[in-house]
């Protein structure tokens, strides 16, 4: 019987090696696989390349991973935030490499990796600093930039419910990068609020079919995140 449930976050991330490329889902307060990130910090892998929309907030989660100096390079769209002081300091000191990617190109490059697309022409960022040195082409009257897929060794994502085949559904805007990161990684590790029996998820409403998922860890007894005060 196929059972993708893993009993602990520690077991789930045990084989992430030094130098691995790790995608981490989440956007703002939604969809962050906090317990998996903490387990990765605990586990100790270093020289990582991390793919995330941001570069860490405050001193927890991804910021803590950065602070522990485990990340060689980050690929993201929006590193600079009001509370990105950990990243800011590392970047200013030249201690972390940054590949800045427009958010939609980031999403599409991740999707392309999962879909086996070798490269694609996108109009986003044409003529800007972020397209410097990249191949361009005029197609049907519109300028485009050639972008390549972003593959990962591991993806750490958060979903709402999963069954033992690894089928996933998400909750509201916490879906964000989850489905595409799951498709782009060799090994996708998911933390979920609830493990459900096979058949409990509507086949019409499964967002990530189990083919994209290798390991699922139910995080039991965690209360919903408190909503932080909105910042200006």
């Amino acid at each position, binding site marked *: 019987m196929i059972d993708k449930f893993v009993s602990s976050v520690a077991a789930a991330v045990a084989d992430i090696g030094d130098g691995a490329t790790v995608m981490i889902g989440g956007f703002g307060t939604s969809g962050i696989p906090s317990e998996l990130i903490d387990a990765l910090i605990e586990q100790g892998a270093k020289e990582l390349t991390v793919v995330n929309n941001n570069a860490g907030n405050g001193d927890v989660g991804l910021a803590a991973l950065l602070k522990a100096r485990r990340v060689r390079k980050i690929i993201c769209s929006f590193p600079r935030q009001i509370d990105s002081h950990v990243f800011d300091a590392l970047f200013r000191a030249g201690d972390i490499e940054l590949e800045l990617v427009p958010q939609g190109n980031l999403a599409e490059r991740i999707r392309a990796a999962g879909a086996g697309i070798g490269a694609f022409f996108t109009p986003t960022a044409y003529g*800007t600093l972020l397209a410097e040195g990249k191949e361009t082409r005029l197609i049907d009257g519109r300028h485009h930039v050639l972008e390549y897929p972003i593959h990962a060794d591991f993806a750490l994502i958060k979903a709402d419910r999963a069954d033992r085949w690894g089928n996933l559904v998400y909750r509201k805007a916490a879906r964000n990068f989850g489905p595409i990161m799951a498709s782009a990684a060799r090994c996708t590790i998911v933390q979920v609020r609830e493990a459900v029996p096979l058949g409990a998820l509507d086949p019409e409403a499964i967002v990530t079919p189990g083919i994209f998922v290798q390991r699922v860890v139910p995080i039991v007894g965690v209360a919903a995140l*408190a909503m932080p005060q*909105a910042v200006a």
Partner: protein
Amino acid sequence: MHRFSREQIAARVARDIPAGAYVNLGIGQPTMVANHLPPGREIFLHSENGILGMGPAPPKGQEDPDLINAGKQPVTLLTGGAYFHHADSFAMMRGGHLDYCVLGAFQVSVRGDLANWHTGGKDAIPAVGGAMDLAIGAKNVYVMMDHLTKSGESKIVLNCTYPLTGLACVNRVYTDLAVIEVSTQGLVVLDVVDGLPFAELARLTGTPLTDGTAGRAAG
């Protein structure tokens, strides 16, 4: 000098968005447009983190960390709204399915070039987010900004001096002094704030402007 207030600018943009439009309101000043959409007019707000049919902020105490907008503020979902993932969300924008994006800006050029993501400062840590996707992400890209910088320089320019977000992508600019259309014939002023002569607007702006206000009531 008279100026449109930020609320007035937001109301003016809202007035120009028709029923049934699919709209993305950028972070910051554009978010205010939502407060001015007439209640009877159904307009579909898109949030690039994966929401269509986004509603207003929830009552205090009912915030949901899984339901936030692109600015990471708590929002709600209207009846009839839907969730989707990031690639699908940006496909909506890149594919030209949105009718309007409303954005803030540092500068807009006479050709509609947009600079709104980076001051170009040597020390500045860059962050782009969805800015470049939004710049090319709608049939109509509208900018809301102050007309002048704090030191009095025009933010409407012949050529952007800040790093570009997108080329020839802005269709219309709403400032505290005027509403200006970016047309193939150059910049056309649709509205000027009460009491500001066109010649004075042109002097402050410092780029060629065509007066298109004839026969129009000021906003």
